[in-house]
């Protein structure tokens, strides 16, 4: 079974409180020497335009499946002792967090690489679509900013 807890959330969450609570569930901590995390947060501006809100659409069933596969892929080359992957769906507002990826490993090399790889794969493979509400109307976000 995957050691990574994956969840889609339709309400706002605080990633650091989630990580604090998540870590309490570890039954054993002796090997967890390294934790790498990434938090993506909604900005107030995108491409120079003020963004008032965002709708995050997903493909129920496929999104979860892809996230599981992305984590499974990362586990083929990196040790993942534990992890947490949260992603918002629905209406999101500036300053709210969109995504949290956290990976615990014995050593930092695996933790860093797995967190980064999961995040990049999520950006290109997990079906989510952002529609921004601007002052003058709505628009679909067409491309992600490059990660590497």
């Amino acid at each position: 079974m995957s050691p990574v807890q994956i969840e889609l959330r339709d309400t706002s969450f605080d990633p650091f409180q989630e990580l604090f609570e998540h870590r309490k569930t570890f039954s054993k901590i002796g090997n967890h020497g390294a934790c790498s995390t990434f938090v993506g947060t909604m900005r107030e501006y995108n491409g120079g335009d003020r963004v008032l809100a965002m709708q995050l659409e997903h493909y129920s069933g496929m999104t979860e499946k892809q996230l599981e596969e992305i984590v499974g892929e990362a586990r083929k080359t990196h040790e993942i002792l534990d992890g947490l992957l949260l992603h918002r769906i629905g209406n999101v507002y500036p300053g709210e967090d969109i995504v949290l990826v956290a990976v615990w490993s014995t050593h930092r090399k695996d933790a860093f690489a797995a967190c980064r790889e999961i995040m990049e794969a999520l950006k290109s493979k997990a079906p989510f679509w952002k529609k921004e509400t601007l002052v003058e109307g709505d628009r679909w976000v067409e491309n992600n900013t490059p990660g590497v």
Partner: protein
Amino acid sequence: MTIHVRFFASLRERTGIDSKTVDADGLHSIRDLWSALTDEPLDETTLVAVNKTYAGPDHAITDGDEVAFFPPITGG
């Protein structure tokens, strides 16, 4: 042969179709299915999933498949 078709995000808005059950007798591939639904060419940026797994435009469709079309993803 029955195919359940879904469109997402900007493609859903452009086609005006959210989901649709298509009688696909005589259709063989994803490409055939697309052509039966719209006059637009199948853009190479359009992503396709068959039963929630990514597939190419030449993937063969079979009875009961759920086929989804969607634009490049922008999550994270």
